[in-house]
């Protein structure tokens, strides 16, 4: 308490206080370092979250595929799955077939996902990603199957809402005259366009009704699997493991991380590496704070002599200057957080930074501020700052009393 009272006076003093050029520069350096860390971590977290949300909205937290035989009816599966994993909040069956989209001479591979237009909301978030038209996947009044397509697919084929396109599915056939292949073709009408959040998805996915997809794939009434939403994305691996163990070999159980496992693992490693590299700015700033504190200590030699003469022990004098360094660091750290948050807000509100989606899968710089990340940044910055204050504080505290008193007479 006494030490804090003393430094509160020193901080606002013209003699070695906060507002000397050396201290202002040191604190500014700290602010920049911390702000850079906040922004970089927010962008990496934002990228991670954008990918996760895109994946979860399209494929669910967990999905189950049946090997060989037809999937049991959902009414039978649901209680069984929920008894294994009470975290399950919703399920929807799906059909997955891969085909070739043709339109005006252009050809490209697509993934057709057949969904139950009622149950889809229980497990997936594709409806909220609609950017054009309407999310109608059931056949229209004339019986023409309707589909919602990714926006990159729309651009690639020059499609508009209401346009028709064909999807062909190559099938091997002994009777075929064309070398053993016989194409199954279905025509779809574009009902809407979605932004699926990832370029990979956007350029490939065609969402339609389960019946239309079953007809295209010649699957009869069979579903490919079940997409599942659980209470928390972080539990997906655990739930997936339990379902896989309980359901046995006849099923393939995957979670959302499996869809882009390499990417997510790389992101985790990158996040740590970026943190360490950018942290070096803060380390350099801490050296500046240490040198600013050393200047303060030198200017306070007289006061140190007085405090010692009055009976203040060395360790308390060390603590006094350590607190002053920490106060500088705290201003730098929290000021840096404020600047970092401001920059994040600018990035989000102006959307000024363009990102090529073909390379990064996203078309804007995503930002997500996580309290945990910011807490870590502040904690590490303060710890570095505290370490950097120790030497100057020790230097001041170990000074001889008489020397300090002589200094004060100057």
């Amino acid at each position, binding site marked *: 308490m006494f030490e804090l009272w003393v430094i509160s006076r020193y901080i606002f003093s013209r003699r070695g206080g906060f507002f000397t050029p050396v201290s202002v520069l040191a604190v500014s350096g700290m602010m920049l370092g911390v702000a850079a860390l906040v922004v970089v971590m927010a962008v990496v977290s934002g990228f991670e979250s954008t990918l996760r949300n895109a994946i979860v909205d399209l494929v669910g937290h967990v999905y189950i595929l049946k090997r060989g035989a037809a999937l049991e009816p959902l009414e039978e599966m649901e209680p069984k799955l929920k008894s294994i994993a009470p975290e399950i909040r919703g399920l929807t069956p799906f059909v997955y077939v891969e085909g070739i989209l043709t339109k005006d001479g252009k050809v490209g591979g697509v993934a057709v996902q057949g969904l139950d237009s009622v149950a889809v909301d229980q497990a997936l978030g594709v409806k909220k990603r609609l950017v054009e038209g309407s999310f109608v996947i059931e056949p229209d009044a004339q019986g023409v199957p309707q589909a919602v397509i990714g926006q990159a697919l729309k651009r690639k084929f020059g499609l508009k809402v209401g346009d028709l396109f064909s999807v062909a599915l190559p099938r091997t056939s002994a009777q075929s005259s064309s070398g053993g292949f016989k194409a199954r073709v279905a025509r779809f009408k574009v009902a809407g366009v979605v932004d699926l959040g990832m370029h990979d998805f956007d350029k490939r996915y065609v969402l339609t009704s389960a019946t239309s997809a079953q007809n295209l794939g010649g699957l009869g009434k069979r579903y490919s699997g079940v997409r599942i939403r659980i209470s928390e994305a972080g539990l997906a691996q655990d739930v997936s493991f339990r379902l896989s163990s309980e359901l046995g070999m006849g099923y393939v159980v995957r979670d959302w991380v499996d869809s882009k496992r390499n990417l997510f693992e790389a992101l985790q490693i990158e996040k740590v590496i970026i943190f360490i590299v950018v942290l070096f700015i803060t380390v350099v700033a801490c050296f500046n704070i240490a040198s600013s504190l050393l200047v303060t200590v030198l200017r306070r030699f007289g006061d140190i002599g007085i405090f010692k003469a009055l*009976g203040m022990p060395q360790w308390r004098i060390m603590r006094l200057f350590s607190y002053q360094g920490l106060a500088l660091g705290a201003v730098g750290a929290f000021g840096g957080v404020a600047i970092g948050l401001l920059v994040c807000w600018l990035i989000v509100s102006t959307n000024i930074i363009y990102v090529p989606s073909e390379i990064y899968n996203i078309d804007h710089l995503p930002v997500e501020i996580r309290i945990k990340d910011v807490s870590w940044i502040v904690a590490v910055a303060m710890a570095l700052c505290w370490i950097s204050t120790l030497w100057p504080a020790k230097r001041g505290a170990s000074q001889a009393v008489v020397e300090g008193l002589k200094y004060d007479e100057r």
Partner: protein
Amino acid sequence: MTNDKSILISAKKITKVFRAQGSLEGLEVLKSVDLDVYRGEALCIMGNSGAGKSTLLHILSTLDSATIGHVLFAGQDLSKLSQAALSQLRNQKMGFVFQFHHLLNEFTALENVMMPLLIAGESFSNAARSAEKILNDLGLKDRKSHRPSALSGGEAQRVAIARAIVREPQVIFADEPTGNLDQKNGQIVQNVLFDLNRKRGVTLVAVTHDFEFGRRFPRVKTLRDGQWF
């Protein structure tokens, strides 16, 4: 004036050598000096500049250490105490008045006087009450909110005396306490110090080269070239 004859401080064969950095040769400032200071007495150490009187005072008061020899305070060998214990001893039993007032510029007169109490762990309210009383006693009631830069030399020195006695020490070490003051303020400071010695029984050890000041002490010892004259 000596109230009783028990020894408070005893210095035995004190030698102090100052060496320049990196030099083997040193300057011997004190040469095997002995001194006993009695409880409640007022002792003056006199001598010319460079005689070693301030150095001796610093060694007696634990602000410096002897190269050879040792000091006993109330029978306790100071060379055997840790730095923390010496700090505690200075805070509890010693008061200091220097030629220069050595007040802390960022704090008011009252806060400066509170410092030894706060260092000792006293609460702010208790420390303020004690400090205010002493400032009143020394005629500084109207100056308690002033910073050192707003005080006259005599006032600053009286604040320094208030700070020295606020913990009710056993001994006050005064190093040329009137050296920076005019005659009038010098007299006031001298009177305060002698009053403390006479009325409160505080042991006074002063260093001066001022004969007028020295003449007021019942016991005077003179140093010349690091030895008693």
